[in-house]
């Protein structure tokens, strides 16, 4: 005996909480739902249920469009265990129009060398019958071809 298999199997019951459940249910309907802080007015997506600046609940749901910009991005060329996507791929921070925080999304339908900070993108959703309460409902973001956002317009989100 030189090797021993020691697999670890963990079963969780996971709850994302009330605020993120609203976000996930929105995804199941093919739309983005964020929440606005009643004090500073910033819109968070996905919302954690409270404003990290003001420490107050973010009770108001805000429907956001599925368009936005790439604030920053990474071209992934390195394979790693458990990788679900074929390399190279682009993991980007996407700032939806009307949101005050970015979240991570894939960028496709463009060569990795052509991706830019400030590039305008739009979500590509899975087929309607495949939508579910999961980020997998968004296949990726694709360029819209619109003019890039000026750096000054998103520098506070980097």
């Amino acid at each position, binding site marked *: *005996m*030189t*090797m*021993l*298999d*020691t*697999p*670890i*199997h*963990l*079963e*969780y*019951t*996971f*709850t*994302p*909480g*009330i605020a993120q*459940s*609203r976000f*996930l*249910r929105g995804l199941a309907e093919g739309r983005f739902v964020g929440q606005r802080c009643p004090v500073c007015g910033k819109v968070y997506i996905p919302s954690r249920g409270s404003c990290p600046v003001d420490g107050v609940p973010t009770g108001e749901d805000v429907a956001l469009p599925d368009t936005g910009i790439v604030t920053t991005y990474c071209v992934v060329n390195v394979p790693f265990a458990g990788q679900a996507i074929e390399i190279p791929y682009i993991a980007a921070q996407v700032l939806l129009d009307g949101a005050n925080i970015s979240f991570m999304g894939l960028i496709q339908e463009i060569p990795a060398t052509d991706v830019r900070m400030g590039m305008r993108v739009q979500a590509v959703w899975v087929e309607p019958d495949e939508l579910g*309460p999961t980020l997998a409902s968004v296949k990726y973001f694709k360029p819209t071809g619109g003019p890039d956002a000026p750096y000054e317009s998103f520098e506070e989100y980097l």
Partner: protein
Amino acid sequence: MAEGDALIAAHVLDYPYSRSVGPVIGAFLTGLRDGRIVGARTPSGGVVVPPTEYDPQTGEDVGEIVEVGPAGTVESWAWVTTPGPKQPLDHPFAYALIRLDGATTSMLHVVDAGSPDALATGDRVVPRWKPAADRIGHVLDIEAFVPEGASGGGAASGGATATAGSAAGGAS
């Protein structure tokens, strides 16, 4: 599935680890696959079972690998009334510290005694092996220890004739 406003989902994480076992634990696992229990002789005169690569008393490297048991003495035990899904037996049993004959340490294993009334510290127990073809070099190649003289105990004692367990999968 929803509870109140919050979603709930079942998540599973699987880590398919494998690890090298080294010469000492490797000898122990190889012994189990072959139906034998071995320990390591230490410079301070003990026999450690399961073997460690060092003398627990002095930290020195252990020496020769020696066969122990297969019978042993229960030094301490705890009865499991309602076994969980990951536990080694599906009916009530004891976890016990067993000092195998020839060993100077005790080994944690399972005693399939039927009832806590049938088990006492100091009792003599023997291993009940899995069939040779099912042994893979794992501590549960011994299904359980059973009271010496109980039916089924030592039934697979012809372990030295075991075929290599590689067909049983996983380990090599």
